[in-house]
């Protein structure tokens, strides 16, 4: 077998002591920045980018790839423990992960997230190895109208799957989209900046997320009467998933892996989108959808598998086309360029040694990550035992540093605080913040896709429904929307109108 031979050669390259060290350094750093809110793989990689100048390219690629996929492991940790997403791709994990932690199941949630990440990470490397060229060419068929429909579908799904009032969820989506329009748009035109130069950069996504989740959660914790109540000790067996929890996680991890990998191939904020696509899918397939949002392990297992698989999938356009589809893969490309390699459409043929060493190193790195992360579960859970007077300032400090670190901007810290105050008021009045935050994340890219689509068609909106792939997505969205609405309508007719909705 050709592939097996190449892979064996790749392992020979990846298993040299220096390359093992680089892979380990990468996954350890990736886990760390994944855990820390605000500071993500992008920040870590841009800090290290200068080091790759003149570095042997295999080391640069191993190190940067490991930081990138390693960060997807750590992102769920703070989501589960303190309701602060470590990365945008772990926002959805807050919904059920943190509920599980409140019910004393933090250990199980963390363990399932780590195992799901390992399975998905490994499966996505298999996909990368076997399917690179054909899938990359398929991904190119997605142009701006297709991305737009895909993101619109994502937002509609978000509204339909929200557990509370659909109208309130829709309002939050619209508010999130509105926040995304502040600042310089993609054509360089400033909007809602009121002449203040600081606003040209917009309301940073990371600052908004951490304000709406982290700060709001800390204010809630302070407001809770039991803020000083003693934390019950966590026994060892509570760290592991029960048999029932394990069984319920298998399907979501498998489906999340496939879904995440496929979405990871496309441009845009797909790693994040894959997590709520997976969440929505699991909620739809579940026999107990009412459990979601109240601590369903499926809601942790699926999205956490999906974001790892998507991160793996995102390598595919880079190695098969030489085009990075996201900020993170653009940095990996930058690292390779500084190391003296220029990946193009024939990267795998021109640099087989480099490609296969990287693939082998990804298998090794995923094993390292699961070995590194599982014992950390106990450590992280014991953090919850820290009294709130220590934990709350620590989380606040992490949020403040994280918001500053994204653009090295103090203004973003003010955005974080503002988002926290607004988010606290909204949550007090029963508004769900997740749709707002996700709309903010998707809004920028959606607007770009909308604008470029309409310039492509010289202003004809039919472009969103006449191209085959775009039309298919639109049809599926319409069908799901009609089905959901009629189902809700029928349910309402069957139920006697005794209790008005809260």
């Amino acid at each position, binding site marked *: 077998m050709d592939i097996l031979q190449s892979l064996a050669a790749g392992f020979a390259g990846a298993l040299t002591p220096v390359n093992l060290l680089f892979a380990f350094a990468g996954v350890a750093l990736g886990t760390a920045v994944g855990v820390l809110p605000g500071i993500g793989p992008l920040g870590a990689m841009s800090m290290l980018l200068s080091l790759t*100048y003149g570095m042997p390219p295999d080391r640069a690629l191993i190190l940067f790839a490991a930081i990138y996929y390693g960060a997807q492991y750590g992102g769920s940790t703070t989501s589960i423990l303190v309701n602060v997403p470590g990365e945008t791709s772990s926002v959805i994990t807050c919904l059920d992960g943190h509920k599980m932690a409140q019910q004393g199941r933090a250990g199980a949630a963390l363990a399932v997230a780590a195992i799901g990440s390992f399975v998905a990470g490994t499966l996505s490397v298999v996909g990368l190895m076997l399917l690179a060229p054909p899938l990359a060419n398929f991904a190119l068929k997605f142009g701006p109208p297709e991305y737009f429909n895909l993101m619109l579908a994502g937002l509609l799904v978000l509204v339909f799957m929200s557990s509370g009032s659909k109208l309130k969820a829709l309002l939050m989506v619209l508010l999130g989209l509105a926040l995304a329009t502040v600042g310089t748009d993609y054509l360089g035109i400033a909007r809602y900046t009121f002449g203040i130069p600081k606003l040209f950069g917009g309301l940073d996504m990371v600052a908004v997320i951490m304000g709406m989740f982290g700060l709001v959660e800390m204010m809630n914790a302070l407001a809770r009467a039991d803020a000083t109540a003693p934390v019950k000790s966590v026994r060892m067996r509570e760290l592991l998933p029960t048999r029932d929890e394990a069984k319920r996680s298998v399907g979501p991890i498998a489906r999340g892996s496939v879904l995440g990998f496929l979405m990871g191939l496309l441009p845009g904020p797909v790693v994040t989108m894959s997590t709520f696509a997976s969440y929505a899918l699991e909620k739809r397939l579940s026999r107990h959808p009412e459990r979601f949002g109240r601590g369903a392990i499926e809601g942790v297992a699926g999205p956490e598998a999906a974001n790892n698989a998507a991160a793996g999938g995102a390598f595919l356009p880079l190695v098969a086309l030489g*085009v990075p589809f996201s900020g993170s893969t653009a940095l990996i490309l930058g690292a390779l360029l500084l190391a003296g390699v220029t990946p193009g459409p024939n990267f795998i043929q021109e640099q087989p040694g480099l490609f296969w060493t990287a693939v082998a190193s990804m298998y090794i790195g995923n094993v390292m990550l699961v070995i590194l992360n599982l014992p950390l579960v106990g450590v992280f859970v014991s953090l919850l035992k820290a009294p709130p007077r220590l934990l709350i300032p620590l989380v606040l400090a992490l949020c403040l540093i994280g918001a500053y670190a994204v653009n090295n901007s103090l203004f973003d810290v003010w955005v974080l605080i503002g988002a926290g105050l607004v988010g606290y008021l909204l949550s007090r009045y029963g508004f769900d913040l997740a749709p707002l935050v996700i709309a903010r994340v998707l809004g920028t890219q959606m607007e770009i896709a909308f604008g470029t689509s309409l310039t*492509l068609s010289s202003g004809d909106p039919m472009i969103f429904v006449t191209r085959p792939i775009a039309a298919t997505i639109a049809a599926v969205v319409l069908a799901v929307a009609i089905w959901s609405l009629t189902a809700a309508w029928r349910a309402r007719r069957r139920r006697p109108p005794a209790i008005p909705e809260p």
Partner: protein
Amino acid sequence: MDLRNRSPRRRALSLAIAAATVALPGSLVTPNAAAQGAFPAKPIEVIVPWAPGGSTDLAARALAAIVNDKKLLPQPMQVVNKPGGSAIIGSGEVANGSGDGHQILYTGTEPIVIQPLVKETPYKVESFTPVLQVVQTPLAFVVNADAPWKSMQELVAYARANPKKIRIANPGPQGWSEWQLRDLVRAEKLDTPIITFEAGGPAITAQLGGHTEALAATATALAPHVRGGKFRVLASMADDRLALAPGAPTLKELGFKTREFMITQCFFVPAKTSPAVVKTLHDAIKVAMETSEFREFAQKNNARIAYLSGPDTSAALKSSVANTRDILVEMGAKVR
């Protein structure tokens, strides 16, 4: 083209030193230099107002690495990315900074020349003193390798006969590629939409996927795809032919009436910076530019080393502002 044969000369030691440079910048301040008040007294921040990993960022990092490796300055140079707002934010921070030389700007000239003409910016061209001009990157006009148009004339003839059928991808708003494309389309009286993307990557992706018919971008960004057989270069948009595709004529040779716009990267400091500090920076960076390492970097990335002294860069900027103003007025745009 096989770059892996280049023997890896870097030692683990240099990596460790570099890691320490990144991690512990403060520890490198020697008490001596700080006490004397000499320049530089602390690490020099090179602000790149663009996202990490782009061509401007990489050139800045390559230069900073050479300056640090060869100890051309007593303090290290560190690249810090401050992206956002079409590079206005990072540029503004430097313009309104202390001007002691410890914070300098490396960017293409777009935010300095174009932005103050079209919108409110926290600086003017005069807010900066150029330290030196470093590289220029020519633009190229490409179609997909399987497209029916073998020459620029064929494409223009088709575009003239079929309004709106040729869509040209443009990698970023209010940049030199957009002005040159608008200049070309206007001069030829074509009804040809210019599709502006948010950055080079998405424009190249759209062109590879056949969502647009043609693309104008830098030789740096296009090189891997031209060599990989995906794109055909129809013309060089610079005044001379490209090393990347010597067979492709220039727009001028073909008789198109268009001005040349090059992507031009320079170092800037605030206008109030003392001439002695500017000279120290200029001399160190100039030596770094002349090393074989930087020449190799530029060649691989299809950039042209285009040294100009500070005063010469200043003069070039002035004429660039005048030119851009003329074009904007011709296009009927509002000019500030």
